[in-house]
């Protein structure tokens, strides 16, 4: 390579490296995300927290996110699933709705072999250029997790299922000191799983890598879930800004969101779940209107046309080049 070419190449490489240093020091990336975006538009209607099937959700823009089994850390599990996500906001609260197929409604955890259906959404706690590990975040990028549990929903809707209710044929003479808290140690120390008087079926959690999931001090996420005709819908709702300890949402800004689903009938719990990668959640000031769409046959027609034109042009070009040879 001639010396002038060598200097040109060297100059390009050094200039590129200098630009890279400036970008890195400014915590910027010379790349833009090209993932699917869940857009939370503004709704002027009321979003009922006790009805995930309310018609207000017909105005939201849905996305389908593929979920894969959690194969990164023990206990591994989960299967390939699809979750449909929708989001709305009313300038005060963010509402996220998840929908997924599940043949059975599993909401009892009264026996050791029973596990509840559940769903969760995960956000980075703080904004940054690096997306946290979707394995419950990492020490440099903690995550805020909202987990809805079918068992907690059942506790609210139908009341706490005690031993007597779960085992109707059990024989008990008497429970001494039945009303003294000291004999309910889990409940008396505030174990969330032992609570009988729930106000929300959604657990607000924080994590800084797997194995560090902790219930947050503030249970500020509301919501509900309902199973209907072979599918669940789980609704999450929280104020947009609740302080720096938790994820903050601002209209006309974006953050990241990931999803997880558990099927109690498949003994899924803890790390045995189906998870998605982080997608983009964008809060828009546009008003949600609903409607529109393209038919499947139209898309198929376009795809066939593109493939046909490409194939014909390629084949003709190949034949022409062979003839010229």
């Amino acid at each position, binding site marked *: *390579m*001639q010396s*002038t070419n060598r200097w*040109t*190449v060297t100059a*390009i*490489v050094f200039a*590129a490296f200098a630009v*890279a*240093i400036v970008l*890195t020091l400014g915590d*910027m*990336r*010379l*790349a*833009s*995300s*090209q*993932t*699917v*975006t869940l857009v939370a538009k503004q709704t002027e209607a009321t979003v009922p927290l006790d009805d995930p099937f309310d018609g207000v959700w*017909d105005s*939201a*823009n*849905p*996305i*389908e996110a*593929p979920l*894969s089994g959690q*194969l*990164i*850390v023990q206990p*591994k599990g989960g299967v*390939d699933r*699809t979750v*449909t996500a929708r989001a709305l906001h009313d300038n005060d609260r963010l509402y996220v709705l998840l929908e997924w197929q599940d043949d059975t409604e599993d909401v009892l955890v009264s026996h050791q072999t029973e596990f509840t259906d559940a769903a969760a959404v995960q956000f980075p706690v703080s904004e940054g*250029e*690096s997306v946290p590990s979707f*394995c419950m975040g990492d*020490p*440099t990028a903690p995550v805020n997790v909202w987990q809805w549990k079918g068992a907690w929903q059942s506790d609210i809707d139908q009341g706490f299922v005690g031993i007597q209710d779960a085992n109707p044929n059990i024989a008990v003479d008497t429970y001494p000191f039945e009303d003294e808290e000291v004999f309910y140690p889990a409940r008396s120390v505030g174990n969330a799983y032992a609570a009988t008087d729930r106000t929300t079926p959604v657990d607000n959690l924080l994590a800084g*890598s797997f194995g560090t999931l902790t219930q947050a001090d503030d249970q500020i996420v509301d919501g509900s879930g309902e199973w209907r005709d072979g599918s669940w819908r789980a609704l999450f709702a929280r104020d947009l800004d609740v302080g720096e300890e938790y994820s903050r949402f601002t209209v006309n800004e974006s953050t990241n969101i990931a999803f997880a689903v558990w099927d109690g009938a498949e003994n899924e719990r803890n790390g045995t779940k189906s998870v998605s990668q982080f997608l983009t959640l964008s809060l828009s000031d*546009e008003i949600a*209107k*609903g*409607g*529109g*769409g*393209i*038919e499947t046959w139209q*898309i*198929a027609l376009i*795809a066939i046309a593109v493939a046909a034109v*490409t194939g014909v042009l*390629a084949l003709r*070009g*190949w034949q*022409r*080049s*062979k003839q010229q040879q």
Partner: protein
Amino acid sequence: MIGTAVSRPAAASRRLAPLDSLAAGLRPLTITLIAAVLAETLLLRIVVRVGVHVPKHSVLTGLFETASTLGSLAFNFASVLALVLLTLVLTFVIANKRSRAFSPLIALLSAGLFLGLFLTLVTDTPEADALFGVSAALLAITILIVATRTGDLTPAVAVALGLMVAAYLSYEYYTLSYVFYRILDYAAIPPLSLDALRFGEAMAMVAAGAVFFAWGLPRWGLIGRAGGAVVAVTILALTAAGLSPVSTMAILALWTTGVSLFLPFPIYLLALALFLLTLVACFRDRNASWIAAGLLLVLLAGYMAESTYQHLLFLLGIVLLSGIVKEEDTPPASQPQEPRTL
């Protein structure tokens, strides 16, 4: 100059001198880019993600953060170089008389690509994403069509290229369909979007086999024991990772190659083995170094190109694999030379 070597007037050679200079720099720039992409993949996409398994205390936390910072530096360096190289290569394609009929279209799509990239960085609007994505998709199709006109593609190579582009277009449909639905404000799910995503991933696995058939099998004897051992160790390590309690396999799949592992795991192992064997064979063939570079860039771009940077790597890889751009020494007017294939 880039193009067919023929005897031509000295004045024409002088007019093309700037392109000659850039053409001569293509090889070292590509080598530098590949080194940067490998560093980014190792420090950002692999080490940082695998590092979540490591218990954090003072020394390891510091190493973890250092790897993350260096990985970000490598990412930005690779991004800038990818941009520069793609600009260069597309300029050569436009100036190449082999692709003259499509030069205006390629120029238009290139302009759309770079404008879309600039707008996504500055405005982050769906319209910018659409411009970038559509330009990238149409560029990939155009490069494929132009490649068939060069006369150098064997049917096996054409099929391999076609499958790679088809897998890319399937992923593009998944993301772009949502972008356009967002622009058109359609409150519905684009039809067949998830099916296209899964189909594209399956096609990517088939493409690995086609790559081996097109470029690896003819060079089977060049792989050698060392090359075979490297590939075997890699596959065994991934298999062990998948079976072990601490699974790095899924991390590598999801973040490095961008596949969701929805097919049976042995299919991914077989596809990766065939692809790596082809890479080794092409690297060992001095006449196929550009094919190796193109394959490596396509592999590191991954199937789910979640950032604009990965799209640029894929397009660069496809252009290098297509054989459209041919490198040759600038000949004096009286001494025509044979073109040397990249």
